[in-house]
């Protein structure tokens, strides 16, 4: 294999089709940037899930004297009912329940006073109005329904609530953003693949004299196609490199300088996620270009 000869051919090829090469690089860069952003959003969502699901808990509210809100309440919870729930919670440890604690009416009142401190509601609250509750942390927050099912509707239980639903709208927005970026990335990738195919067709045509002679003197298919494939690979790699740069910008400017400063309550993805995204883009972009080139060339360069 004559490496210098092949490199020379690639250089000639890329320069000869400069405008097409630029078009390929730009479309690969744009599509992979969108793809990269989708990957970053996914990483962010996963990170937030880990963070928040670790903190949120399931609340089992018990009936109090004036509980009329639940069918299962028949006056206030009895000590027996309370103890039965406690025993069941202990039985579910550690497979389902990680830990739990009990909040009595006085503690609930203190929390509520803090929560409503700027409101006049606090002035009217008395501990007896509030509900006792078991606060339960689950081993796997996603199995909320199975745990809730065991307590919901039981005598003495007024309601079972999952704090996850507070975060739901937030995750919905992120999910929509991710799907939007992914959708546009797919469309742009399709455009990029078509462009690569066309570029290879033009390249094969403009070099038909060379490839014709190569065929005649018995150059192998691999040798004839190699410069084209490497051309595709180089264009794809440059495009993916630009996309990686955009992803780095999204991290440094978008996240570090803006989002992280304005939203301090949640952690943001770190460099490890960004670097793995970059690898994905580089490998995916190059492979995609080579495969698209190869498929086109099979049609236009034959023995």
């Amino acid at each position, binding site marked *: *294999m*004559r490496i210098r*000869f092949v490199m020379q051919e690639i250089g000639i090829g890329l320069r000869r089709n400069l405008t097409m090469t630029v078009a390929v690089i730009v479309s690969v860069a744009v599509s992979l940037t969108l793809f990269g952003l989708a990957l970053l959003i996914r990483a962010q969502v996963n990170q937030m899930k880990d963070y928040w699901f670790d903190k949120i808990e399931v609340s089992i509210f018990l009936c109090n004297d004036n509980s009329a809100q639940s069918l299962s309440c028949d006056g206030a919870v009895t000590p027996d009912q309370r103890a039965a729930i406690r025993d069941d919670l202990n039985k579910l440890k550690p497979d389902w329940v990680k830990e739990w604690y009990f909040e009595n009416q006085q503690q609930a009142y203190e929390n509520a006073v803090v929560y409503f401190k700027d409101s006049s509601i606090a002035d009217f609250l008395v501990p007896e109005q509030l509900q006792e509750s078991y606060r339960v942390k689950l081993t796997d927050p996603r199995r909320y329904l199975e745990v809730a099912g065991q307590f919901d509707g039981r005598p003495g239980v007024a309601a079972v609530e999952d704090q996850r639903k507070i975060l739901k709208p937030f995750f919905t927005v992120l999910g929509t953003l991710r799907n939007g970026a992914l959708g546009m990335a797919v469309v742009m990738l399709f455009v990029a693949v078509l462009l690569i195919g066309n570029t290879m067709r033009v390249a094969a045509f403009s070099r038909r*004299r*060379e490839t*014709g*002679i*190569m*065929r*005649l*003197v*018995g*150059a*192998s*298919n691999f*040798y*004839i196609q190699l410069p084209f494939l490497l051309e595709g690979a180089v264009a794809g790699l440059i495009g993916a490199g630009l996309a990686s740069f955009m992803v780095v910008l999204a991290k440094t400017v978008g996240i570090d300088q803006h989002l992280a400063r304005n939203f301090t309550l949640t952690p943001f993805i770190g460099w490890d996620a960004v670097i793995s995204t970059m690898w994905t883009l580089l490998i995916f972009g190059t492979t995609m270009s080579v495969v698209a080139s190869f498929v086109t060339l099979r049609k236009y360069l034959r*023995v």
Partner: protein
Amino acid sequence: MIRFEEVSKLYATQQRPALSDVSLEIERGEFVFLIGQSGSGKSTFLRLVLKEEKPSNGRIHVAGKDLGRLSNWKIPHWRRQIGTVFQDFRLLPNKTVYQNVAFALEVIGKPRSVIRRVVPGVLELVGLEGKEDRLPNELSGGEQQRVAVARAFANQPVLLIADEPTGNLDPATSVGIMKLLDRINRTGTTVIMATHDQGIVDQMRKRVIELEYGELVRDQDRGVYGYRH
């Protein structure tokens, strides 16, 4: 070297076969003229020898291989023992004489040391020493064809196929090319030359194979162009 056994070729778009029931044998080291009018099947014959086309019927052996059994990925390697020269030279206009010949060796993966040794030798053989750095458009037609012959011969082929190599050249220049092909033939390389050039065929007195409407109508040793049986 070449054996055709009842070979026919019918193109899908045409009624009349381009080649019909042709059987012949060409021995190693022969020099053969392939003559016939345009459309008589000369080009089809050569394309079949190069396995650029598949026969509709019959079997073809070239350089020890049954072409029907030669798998696609083996074709390139097999073609390395065949040199080809065309009427239109087919040189690369942006490469020098030296580079044009070296190109044919580079693309089949010959090491640079071999190329440095072989190319000057072939260029001397075809009489182009001192013109290594010229571009094709700085050469006369005859000189360009010499470059093409040098390129075809660089890898020491056992078979040289020339498709009307003198078609674009004046008679005096043609004689020079024929002398060159004759010299290559004397090194042991089989030469098949398709031509319309009556003067050359009459002068060389080599074996003549004539095709007419795809049929073999004459196969004569030491023949002339105009002979009718």
